[in-house]
């Protein structure tokens, strides 16, 4: 029984999102770092080898660096290397790439592994920021999806913009919406509605963006 065409197309799309999407984990980490830093959080207990180069513990903003490096490396990998080209070809037209002699199964399995590895890096970077527990990835996962959807699947620029938008909107929303509500509504309503709306602000934002631009803000071309 042949696999429905839509499944192959979805898989291709999902892979395109995967190729670029895991980069944003690094960026999300960076965004979280910015958020934490803005709220005056305490110092990140930096790994020893950073301390060696600088002599003292590095402030939280340093968590931006690994994220940026990962993002840059991934962009280079996907856009500038031969392997990246094979990945993009396979995602675009699997059968054709197979016909050209590309071992797609092996390649995509490898890609999946790389993605998982990147998640591991993100997790390690997140360790000092969030509690290390079994479900720690779940919240990030959803936010990552929202970021990708807003930014555009398969688009690294979109992921960057999306993560900044989401991070900033979320933080500002949580900080100021309850206050704003308190100015206009009675305390009882404000204390209930404020946090509620703040927690779903990013999703409302996503809905609005998608209504006007179903492909996200910066959809990947082709």
């Amino acid at each position, binding site marked *: 029984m*042949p696999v429905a065409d839509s499944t192959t197309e979805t898989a291709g799309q999902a892979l395109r999102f995967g190729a670029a999407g895991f980069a944003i984990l690094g960026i999300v980490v960076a965004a979280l770092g910015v958020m934490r830093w803005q709220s005056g959080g305490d110092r990140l207990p930096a790994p020893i080898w950073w301390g060696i180069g600088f002599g003292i513990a590095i402030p939280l903003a340093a968590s931006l660096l690994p994220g940026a490096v990962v993002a840059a490396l991934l962009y280079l990998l996907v856009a500038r290397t031969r392997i990246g080209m094979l990945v993009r070809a396979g995602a675009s037209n699997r059968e054709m790439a197979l016909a050209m002699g590309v071992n797609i199964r092996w390649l995509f399995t490898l890609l999946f592994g790389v993605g998982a590895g990147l998640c591991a890096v993100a997790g390690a970077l997140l360790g000092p920021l969030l509690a290390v527990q079994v479900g720690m990835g779940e919240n990030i996962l959803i936010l990552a999806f929202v970021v990708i959807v807003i930014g555009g699947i398969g688009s690294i620029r979109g992921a960057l913009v999306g993560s900044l938008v989401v991070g900033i909107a979320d933080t500002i929303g949580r900080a100021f919406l309850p206050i704003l509500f308190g100015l206009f509504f009675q305390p009882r309503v404000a204390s209930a509605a404020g946090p509620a709306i703040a927690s779903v602000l990013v999703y409302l934002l996503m809905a609005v963006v998608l209504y006007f631009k179903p492909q996200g803000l910066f959809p990947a071309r*082709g």
Partner: protein
Amino acid sequence: MLELKGVSKRFGGVVATEEVTLEVSHGEVHALIGPNGAGKTTLIGQISGSLDNDSGTVLFEGADITRAKQHERVRAGLTRSYQITSIFKRLTVVDNLALAVQARSGSSFSFWRPVAVEAALFDEARAIAAEIGLSGRELAVAATLAHGEQRALEVGLALATRPRLVLLDEPMAGMGPEESESMIALLERVRARVTMLLVEHDMDAVFRLADRISVLVSGRVIATGAPAAIRAHPEVRKAYLGEDAGA
């Protein structure tokens, strides 16, 4: 019947169609030819509604359909067939055609009554199957059909919507001489009741069927006219045969 004015489309940096102005008269078979990559399929997409226009207007029977959705255009009598076969592979031939018939006859927001009782639907589907030469293959699952049979079904699906104007995108793609003859015969049978815009590479078919021919090169129409005039047109010869084309 169909008028295109300044229709254009680009994909990123690539200009697919540029300022295309074309006109199809009622009852004619108007062929659209051009080298590979000229933008013919893109243009078909723009006329049928599968693709948006970057600029230009599409008028069908006087009405501006530039912004109309594809299914609305089909309802108005403008349907296309696809160059790369796009049928319902897991359904039988009859079910494929019955779907197209169902689309134009009554509402499909009926949730309770089984379709099986609608004999008229299936009778018409079988009639169309006969017309496209698939009489004996009605109950065959579309995926099991031979290439030529699938192309016939491809065209049959478009015809089943009872269009007033049908856009045929290389109906003879990938066909051998015998299958092509059948397709040409089918189109000859059908031309009396359907106006056609026919995109084709098979020049034999084009010159046998066409009343007028338009030539698309690099997204632009470089010539329109009767077959004999097009055959002799210097620009056309240059596009197909290169700079040093002889007489």
